[in-house]
Each structure stands twice: as structure tokens, then as C-alpha cells.
């Protein structure tokens, strides 16, 4: 009987994958298992069972306390090779993506990353992922005996929990000391926001060059009840926002009713994250900006003038 093995460095994402894998397992006639690695792994078994895992592999080996990709790939290879594991489903977090390549190579498997949908077809799993930087959506399937697929967080919902029994396999892993040592970890400003669930979204881009101007943009956001998101530069280069607020190919995929872009050119790596908005409005000085091609209502103009006017108008409406 084939087995679907789930792993993610973030338990919430792993729970989503375990829940969904229950459905896949029914169609494929497979079982669902999960790998729990690192400090405190054993204590999580019941959570994984409650979302639908039949079995968990547990190791609290000391070298797993820091996530080093090659060590984790080694651990997962030893788990995935010994058994009937056909599918390895990983969360497409940053660590999940780097793990996918290394693990797939060890397993001689084909791999797909950043899947934003997965379904059963002809006894295999078919995944959708963006191609050409987001211009197209490709459906792809792995054709090797073992298959590695990393799935974007929040693609699926973690289902209802049920008290359930499962099998705990304490694995005895043969692991080396990591060749990359963590010296320090600097936490980013914690910014708990789920942009992917925002009903109203306002995004700022590189056209907004003055940090002080965020004030007027925040005022606008408050007035319409919007969350603020951004393109890559304000997050990665300027560090105005945490990456939780970056929208696009390597950031969040959102489907708000209203999305307003401010000073955003409309390059595909950003717009792929807002394609599913109901209505798109744009403020940009350049009438030829690509953004206008995917806009419903556009204003050609300087945000520094347009935004305060818009704020004034909305206030007048009360």
C-alpha cells in the first residue's frame, strides 16, 4: 500500500497537508504519515493523529534541533526510503523549498515546488504551479517512483480535529553534524497579518519613496478597512514591512474584493498575487504602466496628490 508522507517545519502547514492527504489517501488507497523532527517532536503526535495521520515517525536526534537543510533531507530520506512512501508532501515554506531539492535528489525523485493546488488524477497527484513568472498556470505531475511536492501554506484548510489513535514509530536516524552552523538569529519585527484573507487590500510599491507618506496611505487604509501590503522592494530592501506583507510570486496570494495599487508598475511577479481580486484600482504616474492592463479603474497621477484627495472625499462621505 502506498504511503503519503507529510513534513513541514511549521506545524500549521503540516496539519493542512495531513488533512488534505486523508482525501487523497481515500482516492489512492494509500495511508497518511507524518515526520516529526527535532525538539519536542514526540509531544506533537496526538495533534497529527487528530488531523488524520495514521502513523508518525518521530526523532528528537540532537542534530535536528537547528534546521539545517542537508541534515533534515538526510533524516527524511531515511524515513522515506525504508517504507512504502510514494509521495512526500512538504510545506512550500522557504525551508520546505530548499529541502525539496535536496531530498528529491537523495530519493532520485522528481520534484515540484510552490504547488497552489493538488489533486488526484489517474492514480497520481497532479499539482498546479505558476510558470513563466506567473504568466501561466501549469499542471504538472512527477513520473518517478517517489515523488516530492511542496505545497504553498494555506492552500488547503486544516480539517476538523478528531480524537484518533495512530502508530508512533520512533526512528533511529544516522545523522552527521551540520556543516553549516547557525551563529545568530535576529528576529524580524513580528507582524501577525493574514493578507491572504484580507477583503480589502491596498498595496504600495517602489513609487512610494518617502516613508512619511505611509501615514496618508495608512489613513486611506483605515477609512476603507483595508490591510496594507507591498511589492518586494518596500519589504526586502527598505524593510518598511515584514515579508508577511509582500504580495506576489514569492509572497502572499490574495483574493480581496478590492485591491488598490499605489506606485506599482505591474510586473507579473507581483500581479500574480492579486490576479483573483474582484476589482482592481490603480494609482500610477505612468499611463503606460503594465498595471493599467489588469486594472478596472485607474487614475493616472501622483499618489502624493491623489491619496490625500481620496482621503478627503471618503471622509466627506462619512
Amino acid at each position, binding site marked *: 500500500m502506498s504511503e503519503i508522507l507529510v513534513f513541514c517545519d511549521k506545524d500549521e502547514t503540516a496539519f493542512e497537508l495531513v488533512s488534505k492527504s486523508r482525501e487523497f489517501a481515500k482516492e489512492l488507497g494509500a495511508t497518511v504519515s507524518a515526520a516529526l523532527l527535532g525538539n519536542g517532536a514526540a509531544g506533537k503526535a496526538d495533534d497529527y493523529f487528530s488531523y488524520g495521520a495514521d502513523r508518525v515517525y518521530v526523532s528528537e536526534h540532537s542534530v535536528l534541533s537547528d534546521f539545517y537543510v542537508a541534515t533534515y533531507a538526510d533524516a527524511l530520506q531515511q524515513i522515506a526510503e525504508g517504507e512504502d512512501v510514494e509521495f512526500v508532501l512538504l510545506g512550500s515554506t522557504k525551508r520546505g523549498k*530548499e529541502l525539496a531539492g535536496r531530498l528529491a535528489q537523495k530519493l532520485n525523485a*522528481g520534484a515540484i515546488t510552490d504547488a497552489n493546488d493538488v489533486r488526484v488524477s489517474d492514480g497520481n497527484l497532479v499539482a498546479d504551479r505558476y510558470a*513563466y513568472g506567473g504568466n501561466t498556470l501549469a499542471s504538472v505531475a512527477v513520473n518517478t517512483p517517489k515523488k516530492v511536492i511542496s505545497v504553498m501554506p494555506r492552500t488547503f484548510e486544516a480539517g476538523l480535529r478528531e480524537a484518533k489513535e495512530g502508530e508512533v514509530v520512533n526512528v533511529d536516524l544516522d545523522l552527521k553534524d551540520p556543516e*553549516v552552523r547557525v551563529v545568530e538569529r*535576529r528576529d524580524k519585527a513580528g507582524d501577525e497579518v493574514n493578507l491572504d484573507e484580507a477583503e480589502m487590500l491596498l498595496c504600495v510599491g517602489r513609487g512610494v519613496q518617502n516613508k512619511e507618506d505611509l501615514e496618508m496611505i495608512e489613513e486611506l487604509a483605515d477609512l476603507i478597512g483595508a490591510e496594507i501590503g507591498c511589492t518586494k522592494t518596500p519589504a*526586502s530592501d527598505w524593510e518598511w514591512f515584514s515579508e508577511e506583507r509582500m504580495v506576489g510570486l514569492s509572497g502572499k496570494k490574495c483574493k480581496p474584493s*478590492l485591491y488598490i495599487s499605489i506606485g506599482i508598475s505591474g510586473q507579473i511577479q507581483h500581479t500574480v498575487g492579486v490576479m483573483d481580486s474582484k476589482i482592481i484600482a490603480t494609482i500610477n504616474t505612468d499611463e503606460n504602466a503594465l498595471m493599467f492592463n489588469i486594472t478596472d479603474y485607474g487614475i493616472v497621477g501622483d499618489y502624493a496628490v491623489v491619496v490625500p484627495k*481620496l482621503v478627503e472625499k471618503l471622509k466627506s*462621505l462619512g
Partner: protein
Amino acid sequence: MDIVVCMKQMPDLQQIRIKDRKPILENVPLVWGDLDKNAIEEAALIKEKVGEAKITVVAKGSDKLQQGILEPLAMGADEAVLLTDPAFEGSDSMGTAKVLAKAIEKIGAYDLVILGEGSTDNYSGLVGSALAELLNLPEITYVRELNVENGKVTAVRNMEESFEVVEANLPVVITVAQEINEPRLPKFMAIRKAGAKPRHEWGPADIGLSADEVGENAASVDMLSNLAPEQDRKNIILEGDLDEKIDALVDALIKEGVLGR
């Protein structure tokens, strides 16, 4: 010090037009991956700092590479290895990693192998990790700051909730994030001089692989379909003076039922 940089050439994604939901790639100019330019820039910066270094660019792609390679050579690469044999066409990410690994093994000397954290078109992020595994090297991904000294690297990685400072001994595989540097625009003279730098073209046999071990024949991922999502937008540019535009926008958004509910 020997530095290998892996770079991918691809159609300019901003210029791809969609017809009947299919991407039209004809006549779209080829460009280098954005992050791959950060990768070559970082190699050039390291060379400037340590003095003695040799930078080799490895690129698998079409015969258009012969022209395109002048840009990375002008940005600071000393030599190029081009994998342009048609047999390489149609590989998936794992297949690309295999071919790059064989080419790098043939180059022989590599203290640092630098890639982008993702290719601009695929963004699979698989090639760097798979390559590190094939070369049996440690890897440091998502690097936004890199320091190489006395056979050791220190790097700052941009992870979701933290910046992670790590260290490792050479040789090591690095994948870079976009914010690590600002790629230089090569000067005209540098591009002219680039033409004289050594370029090698290797086919499967040159790197010890047979034609059916590479390209589409060996792909471990099948593409079942690849279509543009449907987009239906109104494309209305609001006219008039600023007050009129604002009024029109607010009216429209209220009528659409997305404002003032």
C-alpha cells in the same frame, strides 16, 4: 579562489503576450534571470575584495547564449561554459541540476558555487539544493549578505521570521536573494573586451552523459497543461480634473459594491 556562477537566460517575462490563454514566446527578447545577475555581481564583488579569483559562468540554454553571455563576462566573469546542445532542451529542474553538476565537476575547481534563490521564470528553487546534493557540498540559501574570508563564509539568510547568521567552510553552494547587491550595468568597453574571454561549449558527451540521460527524455516532471489564467478587466482610465477623477473612482467602487458596504 575559484567561483562558479550558474545563470539562466529566458524570455523577458514582461514582454510575453497571451493569445487564447497561451503564451506567445516568438520574438520575445532573452534576458538573464534577475537573481542570477545578483549572483554574478556578488562573485565580482568577492573577486574585487579577495584579489585573486577566477569566475566561471555556467549556463544551460539555447544557442542565443553565445551572444547573451557577453553581459556576464562584461560584469566580471573570466570564462564561460555554455551548455547549448539541443539534447539538453526540455529538462526539468532536477535535470538541470544534474547537467550543471556534471559541468562543474568537469571545471574541477570550485570554492564557491553561486546561484539565484530562484529563477525568474520557474522560481522552483530546486536547482541550487539539488546541485549541492550532487556535488556533496553544504549549502546556504536565501543569502542577503555574504562574507568570504580565510576559507570560511559567513552569511546572513533572509528567512520568514528571522535573519539567520550562519557560517561554513569552503567549498559551499550559495543561493542569493535580490537584496544582496545592485547588479552593475556593464560599460561599453567591458562588453567589447568580453568578446575575447574564453568560452567553451559542452554537449552531453563532454560532461559524461548520454543524450537520453538529459533533456526532455530524462525529465522527471511531466507538464500536462500550461495556460494563462483568465483575466477580464474593465481597463477604465478615469478622466477629468483630479476632483472629477476621485469622484468617478469612488462612485464606481460603490456601484461595484466593494466600497461603503
